[in-house]
């Protein structure tokens, strides 16, 4: 596509140029001339409803709305004259004519665009004597409240809901000054409860049920961190307030819009942080005494676990211990956990809840360049193939990016799915194939025309299949996205097809750090960076002796437990009893240690339960399902819980391990005899050399996750990203999968997709008040409607 022609215009005597087709308001913004507006919102359709952006354009009879005028050559614009100022002032006066003066109570007070504009452009004193129209506030859903009088009718919510979310749950009824925003069900909303309408509302007309009247914007400390639910890795800004228990999270929103999610956040990112102070949150270590889990001190619990694990390791060997890691803990914790398992416990029996086949994906794309797409790429790619999964429910940001890309860039979307997923409305072609036949479609893509036979149906003809294949073959750098429907050899086949068209891939996993867990080697057969445990690697050299044989996966551990061969099971932030139907009876004789936020089904079986910090209470990094790594910032603190990182280090310490070898902190592990710069530096402390080479200082504390991040960056190929950029709060793409050395693999593994909906989030989601209230509300309205029928 040719670059659009550049056009030069004059604004306030300044000459500026912008590509043809640029809106005047955007052209002005680009050079720092502010043209105020309420209804204009980048990426949404034009409205010209608020009339705030009126400017004088020479040779035009009246003031023009800068948000709808495209620049033309030689255009001369005045954005700041008495006439324009007067126009703005009058517009605000009109808007304020019916706007209540309840700023002191309004949630938007302090971050209200109308407030800001009134301060800036005047009209604080009204000449209207008429009474204001008052309407009672309405509750539209558990999370959305509507205050009619505050609404200035900019229709941003209507457009965000319709165009952005493709939900179309909001509309405008009546006309003129009696216009009103209306929800789709008369008096309530039936929607995805994403809260985009609340976020985008320039005033306090739409307010959030979770945050309403709790505090004021300037009272909060804002911490930009990552959502802890699905695998998309949206940035969410938490509003923190001091409280009795330390810090309280009062609000999650998308305040600075700097994350990979841009304008977007779904219900989970916005509201489902609220599990952190659920009443059932564990706040003390528990030890089983006389069959009962009873409260204990940290000292007792750590001592007990350290002693017992050491005993089991020394008497029965590491292979009698199993470790199950988490999809929700940070990269550093995952890395530390597997290092702890392999070096301290001496076992390769480590696994995690696999929601998709990341290992198979790594095997398929190893050695390829630019084979993985970032989340941002999805918003700009010219064509996208989506096989399996339902992004609207399971990967809301991905769905948003796909929708925006189709809407704004006319990207071509091809969908192959067994269900009529909602994204089909954006698709250029939607092929509904019988369940479980997604792999047949991959074979068909690769030229196996016989596979078409099992794919066709009344809705999907042979021709339409061929058409899609032809279009994909001719596609320019497409992105191919697939869910857990494709595994192992199917992924390899898909990659084979994709390589022919220079496609980039995204493999969809379900939880916040599923990709991180895979990258960090929570596998019985793979070390960090997908390095085969029984193949050549340098971890022996780096960590000391590590077991060479493959360990057991979760299914293997369950079998071993049944056979009384598993003496201990160490579970971090995972619930295998529910997720993997791990047989509770099998664990009766095993020593089970669980690090958890809540007393889950697995924790109930434990001998010792450690209360762990949630992702909002610790620092680290998360890698999203595309491989975008981002910094997790510590927002608040819950007294008496500790991070999984600290617990693991302390347990290792109680087992008599050298914590300095586990976490490279302080001055070097070995004495640096000055060779670090010399030719014999192989003899020196490699970590210290690496730190020096990268201008980093050694960490001072064994509980500093950054120390492990140093080691990850040093040892895991594909994790060589800019640390500065990461710390600045930006996302960096990691390519551990492309650099993997995973060997042959051991056939099909047990993959259990989470299949979460928009309103569920595994075990964690059960403890979110907001998610539960939305689910409850839906259930009650449904039953009401059934009764009415």
């Amino acid at each position, binding site marked *: 596509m040719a670059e659009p022609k550049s056009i030069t215009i004059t604004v306030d005597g300044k000459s500026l140029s912008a590509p043809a087709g640029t809106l005047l308001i955007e052209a002005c913004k680009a050079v720092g001339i502010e043209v105020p507006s309420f209804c204009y919102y980048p990426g949404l359709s034009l409205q010209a409803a608020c009339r705030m952006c009126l400017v004088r354009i020479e040779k035009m009879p009246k003031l023009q709305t800068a948000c709808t005028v495209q620049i033309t050559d030689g255009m001369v614009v005045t954005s700041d004259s008495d006439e324009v100022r007067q126009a703005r002032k009058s517009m605000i006066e009109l808007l304020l004519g019916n706007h209540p003066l309840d700023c002191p109570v309004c949630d938007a007070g302090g971050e209200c665009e109308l407030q800001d504009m009134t301060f800036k452009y005047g009209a604080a004193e009204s000449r209207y004597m008429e009474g204001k129209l008052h309407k009672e506030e309405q509750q539209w859903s558990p999370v959305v409240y509507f205050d009619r009088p505050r609404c200035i009718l900019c229709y941003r919510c209507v457009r965000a809901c319709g165009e952005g979310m493709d939900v179309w749950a*909001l*509309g405008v009824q*009546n006309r003129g000054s009696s216009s009103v925003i209306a929800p789709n069900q008369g008096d309530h909303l039936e929607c995805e409860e994403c809260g985009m309408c609340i976020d985008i509302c320039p005033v306090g007309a739409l307010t959030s049920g979770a945050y309403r009247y709790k505090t004021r914007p300037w009272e909060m400390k804002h911490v930009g961190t990552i959502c802890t639910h699905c695998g998309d890795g949206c940035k969410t800004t938490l509003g923190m307030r001091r409280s009795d228990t330390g810090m309280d999270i009062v609000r999650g929103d998308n305040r600075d819009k700097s994350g990979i999610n841009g304008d977007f956040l779904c219900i989970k990112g916005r509201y489902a942080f609220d599990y952190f102070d659920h009443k059932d949150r564990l706040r003390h270590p528990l030890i089983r005494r006389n069959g009962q889990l009873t409260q204990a001190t940290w000292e007792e619990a750590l001592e007990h676990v350290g002693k017992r694990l050491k005993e089991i390791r020394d008497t029965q060997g590491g292979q009698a211990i199993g470790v199950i890691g988490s999809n929700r803990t940070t990269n550093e914790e995952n890395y530390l956990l597997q290092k702890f398992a392999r070096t301290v416990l001496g076992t390769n029996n480590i696994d995690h809840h696999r929601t998709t086949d990341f290992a198979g994906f790594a095997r398929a794309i190893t050695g390829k360049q630019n084979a993985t797409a970032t989340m941002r790429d999805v918003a700009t790619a010219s064509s996208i193939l989506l096989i399996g999964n339902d992004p609207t429910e399971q990967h809301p940001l991905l769905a948003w990016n796909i929708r925006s890309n189709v809407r704004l860039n006319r990207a071509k979307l091809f969908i192959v799915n067994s269900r009529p997923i909602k994204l089909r409305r954006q698709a250029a072609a939607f092929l509904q194939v019988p369940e479980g036949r997604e792999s047949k479609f991959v074979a068909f893509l690769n030229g196996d025309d016989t596979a078409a036979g099992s794919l066709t149906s009344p809705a999907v003809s042979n021709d339409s299949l061929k058409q899609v294949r032809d279009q994909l073959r001719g596609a320019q750098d497409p992105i191919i996205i697939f869910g857990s429907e494709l595994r192992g050899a199917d992924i390899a086949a898909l990659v084979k097809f994709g390589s022919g068209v220079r496609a980039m891939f995204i493999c969809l996993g379900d939880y916040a750090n599923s990709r991180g867990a895979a990258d960090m080697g929570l596998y019985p057969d793979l070390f960090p960076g997908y390095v085969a445990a029984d193949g050549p690697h340098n971890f022996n050299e780096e960590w000391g002796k590590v077991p060479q044989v493959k360990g057991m996966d979760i299914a293997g551990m369950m079998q071993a437990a049944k056979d009384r061969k598993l003496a201990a099971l160490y579970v971090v932030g995972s619930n295998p009893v529910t997720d993997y139907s791990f047989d509770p009876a099998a664990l009766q004789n095993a020593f089970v240690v669980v690090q958890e936020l809540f007393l889950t089904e697995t924790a109930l079986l434990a001998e010792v339960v450690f209360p762990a910090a949630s992702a909002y209470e610790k620092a680290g990094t998360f890698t999203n399902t595309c491989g975008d790594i981002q910094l997790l910032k510590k927002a608040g603190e819950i007294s008496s819980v500790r991070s999984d990182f600290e617990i693991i280090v302390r347990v290792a310490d109680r087992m008599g391990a050298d914590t300095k070898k586990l976490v490279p902190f302080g001055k070097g592990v070995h004495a640096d005899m000055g060779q670090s710069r010399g030719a014999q530096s192989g003899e020196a402390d490699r970590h210290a050399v690496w730190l020096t080479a990268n201008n980093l200082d050694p960490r001072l504390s064994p509980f500093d996750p950054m120390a492990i991040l140093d080691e990850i960056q040093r040892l895991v190929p594909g994790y060589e990203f800019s640390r500065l950029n990461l710390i600045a709060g930006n996302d960096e793409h990691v390519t551990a999968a492309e650099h993997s050395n995973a060997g042959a693999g051991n056939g099909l593994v047990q993959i259990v997709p989470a299949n979460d909906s928009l309103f569920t989030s595994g075990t964690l989601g059960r403890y979110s008040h907001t998610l539960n209230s939305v689910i409850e509300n839906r259930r009650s309205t449904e039953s009401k409607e059934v009764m009415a029928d």
Partner: protein
Amino acid sequence: MVISEKLDRFFDEKMKEYPTQRSFLVPMLLYTQDELGYLTNEAIAHIAKKVDLTELEVRNVISYYSMLRTKPLGKYHVQVCTNISCMLRGGEEVFEHCKQRLGIGHKQATPDGLFSLEEVECIGACSWAPAVQVNYDFHENLTPEKMDAVLDQYSRKAKQ
């Protein structure tokens, strides 16, 4: 069937003439209103489905136009013009008289469902002001007395 089959077929036929199907929405609503007296929830759902819009979008359009209604009115809908020509020639007196005689106000219906009253903007009969439109029939050069005769005529018509 929410609307008569004949009307439904007419819609299907006519819709083909519109390049954008939703452009046919307002005429469809008007025809449906004439047939049913008002736009029922079922009719709205039916029409929404026909033009592939959400019910909310159809309701938005209905609420925009004052001549589209979602509540039943009387069998004879008396629309009294009070715009400038009619007003100067006594349109407001006619409206007041109707109010008194029927015992109802603006946009209300008599309990027997026979009459409903509405004060409307110009109906284009200024030359014969004051004018009243009852359903689709015009009555011109009215006075309160003549208005009585018009209403009586409709009452009789209803009894037949």
